[in-house]
């Protein structure tokens, strides 16, 4: 009997799960709410720590999905699910033998931290904007000038009680280092300052990158969080922070302020969780059955979760987890 797994989300997690299931002889259908697969990675320029173009990860996955003949439904927003399928916004029900939730994450909306002036001042960007602009080749100040001084602010919408995002998004630190290096390479004459609370370089090769940014690219790391941004008369942005290492307030004007926005849980995690009695962590991410032996099982029968729907992860971790999820699904289908 041909088994079919419903995979919600067509990002790298969903596609990789589908491919691994296909390799195990199990069919699947990918439900993607956007018009194309690829998720957030579509707008990403290069991946840390190797500076691999995102397309080099995404394109092979997409090609393989096409070659395997895996069914992909785009524009399919899921509003409810259970262990035997999912319900779309238009009321259609997609049935299957198991469900994999791979709905990913939402980027923190930097406008909420209005003191940083995102959406207000032209040259305040988010890390996602920088990736998009690097892809388009349009990275510059709004008026087309080359920035002479750039500030990065770490932990925007992460580890911040005030915006109810207490968790660490893990990948923003290294993204900040990566983008600082990319900007320094693009604008060698610019001074780059990274304002941080802690630098968390957890992955292999990340710490080396950090040191390279410091020593080779002369990126300044200031341990202090920017408290506010304001415009100056010549259209620059004045920022204020405390330089905690000297215990004194610090201010400077910059041409470009880049906010390293964190990963937050999708708003509709709650609705999906309620429809299928999944557990959500306090952070709003889906909580797996346990973090060790059942890290890809949701705890609800027939429902699996993979990728950043459960916690902030990088692409490599997500791809590896997808293989684990496919394995767990295959196991589940065999024993049922």
């Amino acid at each position, binding site marked *: 009997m041909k088994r079919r797994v419903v995979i919600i989300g067509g990002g790298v997690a969903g596609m990789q799960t589908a491919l691994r299931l296909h390799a195990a002889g199990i069919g699947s259908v990918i439900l993607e709410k956007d018009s194309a697969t690829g998720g957030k990675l579509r707008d990403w320029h290069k991946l840390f720590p190797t500076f691999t173009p995102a397309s080099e990860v995404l394109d092979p996955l997409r090609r393989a999905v096409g070659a395997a003949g895996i069914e992909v439904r785009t524009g399919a927003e899921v509003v409810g699910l259970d262990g035997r399928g999912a319900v779309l916004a238009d009321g259609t029900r997609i049935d299957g033998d198991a469900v994999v939730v791979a709905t990913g994450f939402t980027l923190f909306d930097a406008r909420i931290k209005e003191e940083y002036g995102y959406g207000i001042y032209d040259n305040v960007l988010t890390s996602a904007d920088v990736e998009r602009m690097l892809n388009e080749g349009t990275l510059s100040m709004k008026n087309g000038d080359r920035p002479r001084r750039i500030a990065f602010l770490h932990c925007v919408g992460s580890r911040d009680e005030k915006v109810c995002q207490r968790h660490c998004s893990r990948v923003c630190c290294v993204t900040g280092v990566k983008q600082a290096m990319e900007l320094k390479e693009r604008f060698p004459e610019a001074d780059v300052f990274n304002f941080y609370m802690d630098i968390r370089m957890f992955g292999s090769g990340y710490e080396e990158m950090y040191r390279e940014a410091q*020593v080779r690219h002369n990126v*300044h*790391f200031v341990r202090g969080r920017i408290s506010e941004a304001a415009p100056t008369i010549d259209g620059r942005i004045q920022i*204020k922070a405390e330089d905690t*290492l*000297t*215990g*004194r307030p*610090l*201010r400077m004007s910059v041409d470009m302020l880049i906010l390293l926005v964190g990963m937050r849980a999708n708003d509709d995690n709650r609705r999906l969780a309620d429809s299928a009695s999944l557990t959500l962590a306090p952070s709003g991410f889906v909580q797996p059955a346990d973090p060790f032996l059942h890290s890809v099982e949701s705890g609800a029968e027939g429902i699996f979760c993979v990728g950043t729907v459960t916690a902030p992860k990088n692409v490599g971790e997500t791809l590896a987890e997808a293989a684990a999820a496919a394995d767990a699904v295959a196991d589940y289908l065999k024993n049922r």
Partner: protein
Amino acid sequence: MAAINWGYGISKPRAIDIDRNNLRRSDEILHEMPELQSCIGCGSCTAVCTAGNLTEFNFRKVHTLVRRGEYEGAYELMNRCMLCGKCRLVCPRGINTRGVVMLIKRKLGDF
């Protein structure tokens, strides 16, 4: 100007104003010793400091201020250092801290 005794003046701003600070010497110091940029402010150097044991001398703070272009008083503070080298033995980033002391003194003392 009218000589009025106000009993107070305009307090100096405490902010490190990088727009106003001249970073030239700081840049020179970092150019000669780029590894200083890799300081993560862990404070180990200050914790073991022989001079810091006897005075409020804080090596981490002084070199950080110098990197921000705040040179005033840094030379005198660095002069409290005995150059004994304990800090170098504990620095997790492998910074040549004695070299840093000597470099900062040389750059700020113009010799």
